[in-house]
């Protein structure tokens, strides 16, 4: 069986990083990377070698805004059947959460895939089914693929898809944090390939390495970043060659292009980031819940929402603080009673740290 957990090799990589005698801070933007780092104790191990790694805005559920949650809650209240991924149902909005609305009698369905929502709509022609589509470039093609399959007219999507490279630009442009390198998300990169990251390295002279999700993948990625810095380079390297082709998944890219167009959107904890979201193209208006239910959603059109009192998810998502620095962490905010989304999602930094009891 193929395995990337060779201890000797891990020791060799750590030795090389230690020998480099560096003091660096890297950012990754992926909940699964954070899980691997914390679960295997790599965060502490690397800290001892002078490398700090923190999670940025790399949890799709976490960066979904309160306003988007309020939109779906409003549609649920009006009797639509809502289908979405499990984590999303538990994130509190300003007024309630999908889970709470289910307890109050609304029709909320947890699905594993958008196809489950589509199947439900096909089998229940009397119900209006709205799929809340969250996720980055990895998930967006699944939504696009379904919209191209000619879904029934009782099916629509509330599109909340977002794109990673514009968010990386935003982080560097905001300049709140010194970042010496990015570890780029493996599965987003299987779709987009290497090229979309290149302008970032050129513009900000920052090294980047696309990494897989095994412990050795991440150690290797860190060492590749360290080596670039030692050599004064700022390039995009690909550690995850077994899954990420230089050009990405062209078929998925074409499908994305056919169905969506980029749009300026707000991310939780961030201002509006130019061209960082995806909007359903006009041709598919009848499947765009924001168009289909424009009148129903009108009350929210000009509403702005603030974060829950005391919640520092925004600062966590920008990498400014670690979850444990939030006064609510593990006390007022736990996975059972989450205040903010980072404690809800299995990809959220707070949930991951809480799960492995790093209080």
């Amino acid at each position: 069986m193929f395995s990337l957990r060779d201890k000797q090799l891990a020791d060799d990589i750590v030795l090389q990083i230690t020998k480099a005698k560096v003091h660096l801070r890297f950012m990754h933007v992926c909940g699964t990377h954070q899980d691997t780092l914390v679960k295997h104790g790599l965060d502490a191990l690397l800290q001892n070698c002078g490398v700090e790694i923190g999670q940025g805005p790399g949890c799709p559920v976490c960066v979904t805004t309160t306003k988007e949650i309020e939109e779906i809650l409003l549609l649920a209240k009006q009797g639509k059947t809502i289908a979405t991924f499990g984590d999303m149902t538990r994130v509190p909005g300003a007024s309630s959460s999908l889970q709470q609305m289910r307890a109050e009698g609304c029709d909320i369905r947890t699905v594993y895939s958008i196809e489950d929502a589509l199947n439900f709509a096909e089998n229940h022609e009397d119900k209006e089914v709205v799929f809340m589509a969250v996720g980055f470039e990895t998930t967006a093609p699944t939504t696009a693929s379904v919209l191209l399959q000619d879904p029934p007219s009782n099916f629509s999507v509330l599109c909340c898809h977002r794109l990673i490279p514009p968010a990386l630009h935003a982080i560097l442009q905001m300049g709140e944090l010194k970042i010496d390198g990015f570890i780029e998300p493996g599965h987003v990169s299987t779709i987009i390939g290497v090229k979309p990251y290149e302008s970032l390295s050129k513009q900000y002279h920052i090294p980047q390495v696309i990494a897989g999700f095994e412990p050795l993948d991440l150690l290797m990625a860190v060492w590749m970043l360290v080596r670039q810095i030692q050599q004064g380079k700022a390039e995009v390297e690909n550690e995850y060659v077994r899954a990420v082709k230089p050009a990405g998944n062209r078929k998925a890219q074409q499908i994305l292009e056919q169905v969506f167009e980029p749009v300026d959107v707000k991310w939780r904890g961030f201002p509006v980031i130019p061209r960082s979201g995806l909007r359903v193209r006009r041709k598919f208006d009848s499947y765009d819940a924001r168009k289909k239910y424009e009148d129903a959603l009108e009350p929210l059109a000009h509403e702005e929402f603030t974060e829950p009192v005391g919640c520092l998810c925004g600062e966590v998502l920008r990498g400014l603080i670690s979850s444990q620095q939030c006064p609510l962490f593990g006390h007022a905010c736990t996975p059972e009673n989450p205040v903010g989304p980072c404690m809800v999602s299995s990809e959220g930094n707070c949930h991951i740290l809480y799960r492995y009891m790093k209080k």
Partner: protein
Amino acid sequence: MDYGSGTKRKANVSLVQVKVGDYVLVHAGFAIQVLDEKEAQETLALFKEMLSLQEEDR
């Protein structure tokens, strides 16, 4: 799609060009990439080679 450990579930393959017997990466019910078995097997060898190059640099 056989996920190993006895888990089998239907997956949508509209995003990839795939044939029976291939290994794929599955995300939210869709195969998003065909994995290159040879590349996977060579990853460890590549790591070792890169580390030994570093030794020679010094």
